[in-house]
């Protein structure tokens, strides 16, 4: 994919820019739509499916940011493994769609505050870094991050952390088994 991108850049920068805009806006709209659906729908299975869609949109956004390996991981781990886990649990618990209930004021307040903070804060955050207003062109900065580069980093400077993550996963696995084990007596 990187090779193709490189070729594209060299061919027609103006066309590329328009492509970038198209992809970003459409993917962003899809992501927010899917996320909103994942949060608001009342049937848990619909939520899960909407979340899968959101995760795939995000993976696509990763591609526009040239993080191809992470995009693959996003799809495989998140959309594949994690969401399957969610679906399993939904099926296992046989969760029904919940009834509507009034929402406490404190939560509404928190969401409103969070919205205000995002709307007000992000422009300020960007303003704090003037360089953030520079356009991000496809492969404008040379270093491409493929699986090879990330793999090298993971197994060299981040090796201890990587191993620790392995231990974490093992512990989590054991923990899950312990948590879900039915008491033999009951």
């Amino acid at each position, binding site marked *: 994919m990187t090779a193709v991108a490189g070729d594209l850049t060299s061919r027609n920068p103006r066309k590329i820019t328009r492509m970038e805009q198209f992809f970003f806006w459409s993917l962003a709209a899809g992501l927010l739509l899917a996320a909103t659906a994942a949060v608001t729908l009342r049937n*848990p299975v619909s939520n899960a499916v909407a979340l899968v869609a959101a995760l795939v949109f995000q993976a696509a956004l990763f591609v526009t940011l040239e993080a191809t390996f992470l995009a693959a991981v996003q799809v495989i781990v998140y959309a594949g493994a*994690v969401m399957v886990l969610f679906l399993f649990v939904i099926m296992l618990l046989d*969760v029904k769609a919940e009834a509507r*209930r009034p929402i406490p004021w404190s939560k509404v307040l928190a*969401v409103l505050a*969070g919205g205000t903070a995002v709307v007000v804060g992000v422009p300020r955050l960007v303003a704090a870094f003037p360089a953030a207003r*520079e356009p991000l062109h496809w492969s404008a900065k040379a270093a491409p991050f493929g699986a090879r580069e990330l793999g090298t980093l993971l197994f060299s400077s981040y090796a201890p952390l990587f191993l620790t993550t392995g231990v974490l996963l093992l512990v989590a696995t054991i923990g899950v088994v312990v948590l*879900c084990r039915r008491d033999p007596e009951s």
Partner: protein
Amino acid sequence: MMGAEITLGHYLALSGLLFLVGLAGVLLRRSLLIVMMSLELLLNAANLALVAAARFQGIPDPQVAVFFVITVAAAEVAVGLAILVAIFRLKKTTSAEDFATLKF
């Protein structure tokens, strides 16, 4: 399309909006299952910001961080769902409002 070029600010704004959606889910939904899904959205918002920053800076290290975040998120989901299952076995419900045993 909108005439402006796509900048880091766009990605950060998107990340913020995604976070807001996730936050609304965490706070407003009662089903703990949906709350956990919303938590995934929060994590993804952070991931998006990290990857955008990595792209902007031209360094791979934030991507490594995102990798770890995904890993930890997987573990978290596994454990969280296990706890959810255990709670459901105990209380026969997954509604957050039914768990107020910490009160007093």
